[in-house]
């Protein structure tokens, strides 16, 4: 399945930015995960932009958990950009993700990681 509808990539300074969009659930989380992992394996820093996500379920949460875990292990920084409100933020907060992972603004997060 092509995942371009849900995930695109860009560079923000040293960081690899992953832009997620639309509804992420059991049906597409696996494929999206593979697309992201293929792209960030060698990244120095990763930004995951969830501001355009209209729905995020536990499959999406598991996916993000795996990615965060791997980067932590490699000692590379990662930020999840979730905005002030929205379904993604709600789901992640319900799952009690660490507060230091969240960023409200993509540019600011990029500057943080770049510095």
């Amino acid at each position, binding site marked *: 399945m092509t995942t371009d509808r849900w995930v695109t990539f860009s560079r923000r300074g040293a960081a690899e930015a992953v832009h997620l969009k639309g*509804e992420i*659930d*059991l*049906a597409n989380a696996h494929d999206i995960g593979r697309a992201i992992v293929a792209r960030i394996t060698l990244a120095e820093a990763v930004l995951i932009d969830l501001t355009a996500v209209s729905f995020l*379920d*536990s499959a999406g*949460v598991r996916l993000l958990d795996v990615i965060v875990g791997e980067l932590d292990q490699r000692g590379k920084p990662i930020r999840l950009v979730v905005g002030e409100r929205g379904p993604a933020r*709600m789901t992640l907060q*319900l799952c009690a993700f660490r507060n230091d992972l969240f960023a409200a603004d993509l540019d600011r997060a990029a500057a943080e990681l770049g510095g």
Partner: protein
Amino acid sequence: MSESGGPDVTQELRLPWDDDPEELYEHAPCGYLTSLPDGTVVRVNQTFLTWTGYARSDLIGHRRFRDLLTPGDQIYHETHYAPLLVMQGEVHEIALEVVRADGRRVPVLVNSVLERNQGGAPRLIRTMIFNASERRGYEKELLAARHTAEAAERRIRALQRIVADLAAAPSEAEVAEAVVRAPEAAFEATSSSIYLVDAERDQLVAVASTDPTTGNWDDMPRSSARAVAEVARRGDLHVVGDLADAAEHFPDLAETMTRSGRQTVVLLPLTTGPADEQPGITVLGLLAFSFARRRVLTDGELRMIRLLGQQAGQALDRARLYDELGRREERASFLAATTRALEAEHRLLQRSRRLVERVVPEIADWATVRLHVGPAGLREDAGGPAPAEDLLDARIAEATRSVTPVFATGGDRLDCTVLPLTASGKVLGTLSLRMAADRRGAEAERAFLADLADRAGLALENARLYEQERAIARSLQRSLLATDVPAGDPRFALETHYQAAGRDLEVGGDWFDAFLITGRKLAVVVGDVVGRGLEAASTMGQLRSAIRALATSDNGPARLLEGLDRFCQRVESARMATVVYAEIDLDGCELVYACAGHLPPLLHQPAGPAEFLLRGRSGPIGTRAGDRRRTEHRVTLTPGSRLLLYTDGLIERRDRPVDRGFEVLGREFSRLRGAPLKGLAAALADTMVGREHGDDVCLLCLTLGAEERLERTLGADPLQIALLRSDMRAWLLGHGVDTACLNAVLLACSEAVADAIEHGYRDDPFGVVDVSATVTADAVEIRVADHGSWRGPEQARGSGRRLIEESMDEVLFDRGDGTTVTMRRRRGHAR
């Protein structure tokens, strides 16, 4: 022998013809023999002795008659002569040969009589012998004459057969085959060969021989000094009697004759034109035949040989005309078949492909079409090997610049012909090809290629125009259909689907539309314009706008159709379009509809099965034969009703009658009652017509009002969860549920369904999940039930379960037959 006994007084007075009997016996004009029954000669006359050279004493008492015969005749005497004589008492005109004393033979005819004594026993044999020397001579002459006549007849018959073969030979090659066999059959020639004139190349070409080990087989110019060319130029029969004769006039022939052991050679030009008039004749070939032994040909034979030359020449002439006619016919039918083959494809790429596939291998071993279309151009190749690219590019550039064909010439390194493909004076591209080597008649071939290029150019230009129109029509249609239908209104939800024909057809004239006439009145339309392509697409656009303009709060469906009838008096292409048009009072829950020649809408109210709305019918727009009294019909709807409008592509399938199509559609629509609205139209189209359908399909499905209770049944497929969320989001919005509550309910419901699919139905792809939801003034309640078996470890469901529990206020898991999750969330509850 005297009859009287008195003295012979007449002796002196004997008349000259009054022969003495003894004298008569001795000198009779035939031989007389008397022999005993065993054949021993006892008396013989002088005539016999004179003929045979024997002395009387040699024979009498010493020899038997049979001893005087040749050995062959002795046997004949024993086996025929003697038995016949004994049986019949006499034999007549027996032809025998007597051996003379000097050993030479005298042919004779023999008559014999057997005399018997009174007891019947053989007493003696009297034999009369006629000299048959001269008669035998005549006979021999006659026989020889007969042999000669027979030979002549055989020759004539052989020639007749050859002439018949020639008449039946349809091609030059077959004529040559028949002619080359003639000299052996008719004149006992040892071998023969045939050469044909190739006028275009000004050469003589050896084409057939009965003994290819002889002769020189190189093609030669007609001006060559070789004997064959020389005689062909003269146009008259030439006989080379012997080697000396050849050495004097034609050294090349003498050399060949020596090498292949021939003594006599005949060189016969094959001619056509007036017989015996040297200047008027045309030489088409030459037949050379030779004899291992020296052969003198009689005048009769020479006449016949000349005749053969004329007959063969005429047959060649006929065959050449026939061949030319055949080739012309072949080219004409190739062109016709190519035109037909190209017409069978509409698209430019496919047409170009067809063109090179027609050309290779039929007339060329390699071909390429290059067209100047699009940014990259178009290129189709067939056959091989491809020629040098740089040389080809140069020639293509030349042909394109000059707008004239560049033909391959002899000794040309590229050996390819490049034909510009033009249409209305513009060069569209080129067709390059390498012709098969054996194609002759360059002039005719060039005219043929020019014709081919003309036809191909026209066909490809048409395909290009078609392609252009198709692209415009598609984008026009897409832009018209893509206009947003109203959404986000809690009072209704719309789902549309357009599926283009599976085969590579032009765009159709199907369309759908939905718009709000006033705040409380929604209009929905599905229609179908006659025809396909750009015109159908633009007519569809015009009709669509006309309907939007005519739909007012005062006009109902019937009056709107009347307006369309008037409209099509100005827009003729809209005539006979079919339309179903409905207006829905969103607050009053009332439907008014009218069908102008269109298929009936299908309505499914929450209670009961789906039904076709068969009232409010009249003829197509602008119909002349149909009923133009426009009527409409009114139906009251219950919230949650679903209405389906569609075009005929949905139910018309070649392998299914239309009434059966209605039946299947009604059943499928009812069956999908519980399915989420989103994706419903596409699912229906998929079930009804499949992917490989021959017509466009256009669907519009409307769900009216927020159902009191949302009930859905999902297959065990993760993709279904998103569809459910879409329905549920609309339903929650319809009931004015606040965003936080809405997001929480969607999350919990998704998790519960995902859980059922992932764990409850991990081994059952056909399992179903039932979802029901109700809204009260202060809360939303959801129930998700599956009938699966519980397999997964508790741990695996951790995060999903936790999300459900975190986002809902009350959650109850009940594991009986499958799992049922009941969840409740308070409204307007800020968390």
